[in-house]
């Protein structure tokens, strides 16, 4: 389900966190003499919008506008009927109905007299919006900001990873002999009741890589890959029920701190949240392990 319980717990993520992040973006705008930073967000690609505002769309797409001198504005394709709820779970107060957010952006630029604006990851914006942005009288330039997570973010990732790890290991211990669909349902119930917004569960009995449940009974060597979103922070954990010592034969790295929940990476990027998974193989049975790490200046640290 995309996406379940969306909330903002100010004790774990204070308003100060967002003010600090917005101030950092504005400082960058100042250095480049740009009046505005535009951040694209949608149901699946919401890491960046969440970082600055705690806005995570459950449907549709939006543009978050961060003016250098004013409060942020959300150009939102959702109905005004849900704006009170959006305001209750984000730092946003100015939400404007925008069935066509690119058009809304160009109108604001025209009103304000902004001729050149910054767009976070301009090349990664969906093609149709990108075309509209480039067709207007406003020059849109690419802005890349350091993706380094702050302490608040690391704390959220730690919580999410601990939640995923503990829950998965407990369910794994009683998973042998269970149908994969049933096992997936158990994870859904456990984690959603604990506040997870979304889960992606992949499983295998060792003949294939983990994949969506297909009606198989889980055997003694089964492995599970769990991607879990907790309050907008995605983590990944993989475990095998097998008691045999894993001997890695293949390694795969994913970046969790880019615009997507997770995307493959061909290197161990630093200042990033990474999911590292490895495959081991014994007597043609494939097993999978993995976890979520903070890749800082001192190397990988388990979150």
């Amino acid at each position, binding site marked *: 389900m995309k996406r379940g319980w969306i909330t903002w717990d100010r004790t774990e993520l204070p308003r100060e966190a967002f003010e600090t992040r917005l101030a950092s973006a504005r400082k960058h705008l100042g250095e480049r003499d740009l009046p505005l930073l535009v951040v694209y967000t949608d149901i699946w690609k919401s890491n960046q919008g969440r970082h600055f505002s705690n806005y995570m769309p459950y449907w549709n797409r939006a543009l978050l506008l961060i003016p250098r001198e004013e409060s942020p504005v959300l150009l939102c394709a959702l109905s005004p009927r849900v704006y009170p709820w959006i305001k209750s779970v984000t730092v946003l107060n100015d939400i404007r109905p925008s069935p066509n957010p690119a058009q809304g952006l160009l109108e604001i630029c025209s009103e304000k007299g902004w001729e050149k604006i910054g767009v976070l990851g301009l090349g*990664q914006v969906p093609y149709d919006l990108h075309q509209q942005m480039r067709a207007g009288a406003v020059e849109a330039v690419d802005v890349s900001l350091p993706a380094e997570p702050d302490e608040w973010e690391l704390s959220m990732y730690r919580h999410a990873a601990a939640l995923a790890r503990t829950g998965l290991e407990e369910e794994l211990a009683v998973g042998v002999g269970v149908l994969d669909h049933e096992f997936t349902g158990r994870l859904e119930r456990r984690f959603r009741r604990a506040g997870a917004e979304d889960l992606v569960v992949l499983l295998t009995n060792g003949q294939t890589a983990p994949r969506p449940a297909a009606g198989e009974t889980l055997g003694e060597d089964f492995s599970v890959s769990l991607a879990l979103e907790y309050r907008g922070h995605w983590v990944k954990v993989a475990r095998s029920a097998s008691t045999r010592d894993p001997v890695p034969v293949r390694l795969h790295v994913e970046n969790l701190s880019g615009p997507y929940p997770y995307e493959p990476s061909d290197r161990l990027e630093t200042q990033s949240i990474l999911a590292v998974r490895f495959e081991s193989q014994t007597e043609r049975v494939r097993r999978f392990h993995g976890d979520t790490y903070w890749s800082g200046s001192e190397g990988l640290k388990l979150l």
Partner: protein
Amino acid sequence: MLNQQRLHQLTNLMSERGWERLLLYGHTWRKDFFRCLLNVNFSGPHAAAMVSRAGEVRAIVTDPWDAELIPPSVSVSVASNFAQALGGAAPQAVAGMELMEARFVAELGEPASATFDVEEIRRVKTSDEVESMKKAAALSDSGYQHFSRVAEEGMTEYELAAEVEAFLKRHGAEDNFMLIASGGTEVTGMKPPTERKLQLGDSVTTELTPQVDGYWAQICRTLVLGEPNAKQREAFAIFSEAQKAAEDFLRPGVNISDVARVQNDVFRKYGYGDYTGPKYTRVRGHGLGLHLDENPYVLEEVNYVVKEGMTLIAHPNTYLPLSGYMVFGDSLLVTANGCTPLNQTERKLFQR
């Protein structure tokens, strides 16, 4: 998993349009253009299927685990740099181009968008697709039964969503899209679940949309905790009449704008015409298939002639001052002479 009938349709389209190569793009949220040909539930974030006019199919995925899902008859490559992998593709047309990152399209030269053409092909379901839709609708029925059994006073909305989500996954759903609301006349729309606790007298609305074999079916129902009051019953009667009007009217050859109009006319008849516009509601239904919110939208301003084999939901969901936001709707299959509901759930104002 490789839809041969769809491949035939696509190569015919390519011949008509003079395209040598057609690319079908999908990302993790919108897998539908990719899955309409290669129906595998990839993790992503990206996947593309390249079709040649001769009928050869080649796939590009970004996660090595996804490569193992691709049938052996299709060659597949794994690309951690998707933009680079698209570099040599040079398709003349792309379905799903509007969804692609702009930098990906830049790698493709200047292809035409095949999105509209492929959507039009997808609108009319093949017999296999109809079977998948029926399975998804049956699961939405049992999911709603579960919803109505477990909802109780004092339970939070998100706990209820967790119970339903677990049920649907336990019974084979790949995914589910669900919105919910609870309360009285103060409720103006549905949204994701909150920590609000259900109370006696609440209208609890939901739309459940489980996905089976890639296909989404939807059911909308309203449940009252306790005995429904007179206004809730009065509101439900209007919704029920409006939905029935759509179902009685829907058949091949009618315009989708009229499917919206006959629903709205019921509200107008009872003096609630003002509540059929965008201030209070989004659409009066929409297409269903490999995406859960397909065109055409059922709106009076949309001009589209209905065809046999289409699947859609008619739902007159809106706010009424009588009861607050209320929902009611079933997935429908357009048949030769009318339409048939894919859902079997009783059509009533549920009570618990």
